[in-house]
């Protein structure tokens, strides 16, 4: 039994760390969670759908629930999201609901649970993650009767951790390792990023125009792009040169 649980989490972690498409993580996440009684999941920033940064926020929600949740702007009052925003560690939807009642939450806030039940989402799991500053990110899983035992929650935390990291890496192009540029190539790239022409760079560095172009060709090849501007953008994104903006 323990071996099975380990194999399941371990296999999912492997997929997340090696995935080249978010679809691979999505399908594996759905299958992995199904065994734990989870039918809906969300991984990403805890904001309204229309405020999600490009590439962030992955859904595997019950049909209709995503639309209803977004239309009602539930994310603004959802006690489950509020729990994660307080960064208080993993919890269950049930615990979030109890706390909301205890603290006198609004009728609108508690209505989120009632509406979720209409989609067979009776309970679930929530955990905050590190976040993509300044947004607060989280992972939440729900279902009719999800496994919220101690072991079940531990597994969900691991699965949520790897799902979040896998999606984040894909969104940020994280697995792409910066190519090594020679000191001269770095100088040429920095001046190119400033908008200088090959002739101007040659004058600044006291080298010929053809030499500048040779360096630029090498830089483009190393980044696998077709223009020096694309290379400069990639270099700014991976921190090789300071962003010119």
């Amino acid at each position, binding site marked *: 039994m*323990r*071996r099975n*649980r*380990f194999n399941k*989490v*371990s296999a999912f*972690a*492997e997929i997340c*760390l090696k995935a080249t498409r978010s679809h691979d993580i999505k399908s594996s996440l759905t299958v992995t969670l199904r065994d734990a009684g989870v039918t809906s999941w969300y991984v990403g920033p805890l904001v309204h759908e229309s405020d999600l940064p490009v590439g962030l926020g992955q859904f595997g929600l019950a049909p209709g629930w995503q639309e209803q949740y977004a239309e009602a702007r539930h994310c603004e009052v959802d006690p489950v999201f509020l729990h994660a925003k307080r960064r208080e560690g*993993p919890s269950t939807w049930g615990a979030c609901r109890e706390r909301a009642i205890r603290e006198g939450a609004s009728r609108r806030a508690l209505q989120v649970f009632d509406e979720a039940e209409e989609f067979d989402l009776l309970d679930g799991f929530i955990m905050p*993650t*590190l976040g993509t500053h300044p947004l607060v990110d989280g992972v939440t899983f729900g279902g009719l009767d999800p496994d919220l035992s*101690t*072991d079940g929650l*531990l*597994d969900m*935390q*691991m699965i949520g*951790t790897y799902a*979040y*990291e896998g999606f*984040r890496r894909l969104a940020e192009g*994280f697995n792409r*390792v*910066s190519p090594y540029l020679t000191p001269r190539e770095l100088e040429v790239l920095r001046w190119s990023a400033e908008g200088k022409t090959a002739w101007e760079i040659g004058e600044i560095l006291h080298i010929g125009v053809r030499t500048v172009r040779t360096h630029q060709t090498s830089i483009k090849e190393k980044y696998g792009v077709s223009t020096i501007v694309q290379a400069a953008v990639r270099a700014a994104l*991976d*921190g*090789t040169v300071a962003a010119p903006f």
Partner: protein
Amino acid sequence: MIHLIAGATNPNCRELLAGMFRLRHDVFIKEKHWNIKSYNGLEFDQFDTEETLYLVELDEAGAVVATVRMNPTDRPTLFSEVFADMCHGGPPKCPKTWELTRGAIAQNVRKSLHFGRIECATIEAALLWGVTKACGIFGVDLLMKKMRCGLDAKPIGQPRMIDGESHVAAEFAMNGDVLQRTRTLYRITGPSIEQIHLMPGARRAA
């Protein structure tokens, strides 16, 4: 400044080591209330040996602000002696795999870049010593932070609650690519380790 110190009893680094053991006492006993022993405000155990390596970071005033302990896994480790059941297939045993334990950052600098520097220094130390893999028992939060740093941390056991926090045994590769990723993320441009203190008489030249 980050020092790499070989040996818990290295006679050339008594003050640095005492500062490091004191930081561990402050973090693990005073702050986290771990049920472990300490002696006159210094926390150390049977896994602090002459074979152990330490990273010790000092702030500008010379106070120890961050540390991590590294032990080769072909010798007794916390994994093999205390938490063996947390690892499926038994604890790692390989001279090229380090166990990382007692990672601590002083409370007052925890939101600064010390974490990134210590992570880079750990990988640099591994590259210097020819170590290719590291393992340990980490809080799941810390595991996420390590992955954010660029480490491909893989679980090697079932998670478990320890002192009210979920922990899991995990391992990850230590190589030049991982070092580059971590340096890029924290915008660190050069080596993080500034001084290496070998045990007097040790044959290894780092």
